[in-house]
């Protein structure tokens, strides 16, 4: 039986951090993302549950900090009505930053024509791009009337769970199409760092975590044919060109797949031909699709029930 993996973030000095990576490999865990920044490093990891204390001890020895990161392995779309200064960098970027602290990979999506009330709309391309993610967080403004009556038309065609943030206190049921509403994160023109604002962001992370857990439970009922974290390791070993990709997350994990940041035309066959120890190919157990984001590859892993003969 596969080990239960727990997501954690390590923040500490870059000195000797490779010891953690070695230990992680020995334990059978996975490194999801490594972000070096000058003398510091941030490691997002999946650690086997029964061995967490070993990693914790080592982290303590290296004077780093190990914190649980429940959103690890998810790709969240933070959608703002446009990319204008009314929404960015505050509060939409603050929301995205906070979600990243929870371990999520976030993409900021500014709609082309999402502003206003009567005139707000989303394009087919934008809806498809949002649907490639695990969760969509819509960052709205200050007015209850807009959030309840006008903005929900931006949710049309979105098939993934929708989290809405805004200023006023509203019950989720009042916003048609929203799965969860989090108040206290409306339009602001300053960086969100007041106590009440940070509290609201904590609530947001918690709520997104709940949605992610629900989705995980749903997947657990009919598990994926292969674990995304394991697939990630195979991609790194069998498609070595991925190691030359300079984006912060060349492989972005999702709950039911991943985004491989290599050109689809040149690499989709190589990705499809990845061989697993059990003998099957990736193309047998996953759909390999062109992503709407640039020319990347989107891998959506099939469920066990769909590939029963393998």
């Amino acid at each position, binding site marked *: 039986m596969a080990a239960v993996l727990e997501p954690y973030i390590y923040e500490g000095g870059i000195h000797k951090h490779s010891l953690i990576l070695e230990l992680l490999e020995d334990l059978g865990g996975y490194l999801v993302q490594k972000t070096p920044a000058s003398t510091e490093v941030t490691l997002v990891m999946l650690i086997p549950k029964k061995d967490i204390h070993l990693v914790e001890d080592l982290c303590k020895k290296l004077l780093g900090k190990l914190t649980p990161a429940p959103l690890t392995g998810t790709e969240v779309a933070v959608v703002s009505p*446009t990319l204008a200064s009314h929404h960015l960098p505050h509060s939409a970027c603050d929301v995205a930053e906070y979600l990243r602290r929870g371990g999520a990979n976030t993409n900021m999506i500014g709609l082309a024509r999402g502003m*206003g*009330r*009567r005139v707000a709309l989303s394009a087919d391309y934008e809806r498809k791009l949002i649907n490639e993610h695990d969760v969509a967080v819509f960052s709205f403004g200050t*007015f*209850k009337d807009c959030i309840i009556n006008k903005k929900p038309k931006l949710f049309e065609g979105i098939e993934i769970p929708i989290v809405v943030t805004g*200023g*006023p206190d509203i019950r989720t049921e009042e916003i048609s199409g929203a799965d969860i509403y989090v108040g206290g994160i409306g*339009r602001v023109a300053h960086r969100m760092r007041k106590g009440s604002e940070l509290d609201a962001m904590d609530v947001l992370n918690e709520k997104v975590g709940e949605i992610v857990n629900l989705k995980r439970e749903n997947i657990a009922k009919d598990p994926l044919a292969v674990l995304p974290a394991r697939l990630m390791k195979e991609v790194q070993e069998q498609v070595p060109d991925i190691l030359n990709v300079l984006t912060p997350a060349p492989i972005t994990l999702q709950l039911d797949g991943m985004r491989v940041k290599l050109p689809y035309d040149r690499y989709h066959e190589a990705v499809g031909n990845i061989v697993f120890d059990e003998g099957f190919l990736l193309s047998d157990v996953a759909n390999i699709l062109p992503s709407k984001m640039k020319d990347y590859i989107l891998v959506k892993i099939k469920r066990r029930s769909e590939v029963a003969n393998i």
Partner: protein
Amino acid sequence: MEPLEIFTVETTEPSEAAAYESILKDIISELAFSRTIGRIKVRIRPEDSLFMMVILLRRGLPPIKAGEISDTEFDREHAKVFITVRDEKTIPQFLDRLWEQFGRQNVMQPERNIIEVASDLETVDKFIAELIVDDPEKTIRERLADMAIRATPEGFRIRYHSLDSGKFVFVASEDTMQQDWIDEANVMLKELEGDDS
């Protein structure tokens, strides 16, 4: 009039006014406007897609004339004029005006507060006598427009504005502009002026 002596935000849902007031305060402080604005009143009716803002500006600063902030000396032998600028803050604008008029190659800055102009002495003298180095009123007008656009909810792109002797009226909506709204904003302005009008 004291800076920001009246600061009112009215919204249909009273609880939302505080949030919008905070946005406006951030924008005002970002654009360094707090000492320029005397009174401000904003009324927002999201259900009508309507944003109205009236501002009474405090009496602005007078234009800065070159003669008031600098001394000129003539070097007739080398056909040069030396300008000693006493107000350091205005040097960049001063240089800009001189470059515009005499070309970059003829205007040098050998020291921080000394500008050297090589040109016909009389022309330079006449130019400097009439030169307005900086007009704070003009920059305020430009920044005021910037502030109004930043403060408006996004998408409200049909706008009306007027600025008349320090009285600024701004109305924005995403629907066709209505005369009633402009009239209402003018009433707001009258209210804001109160006894001063």
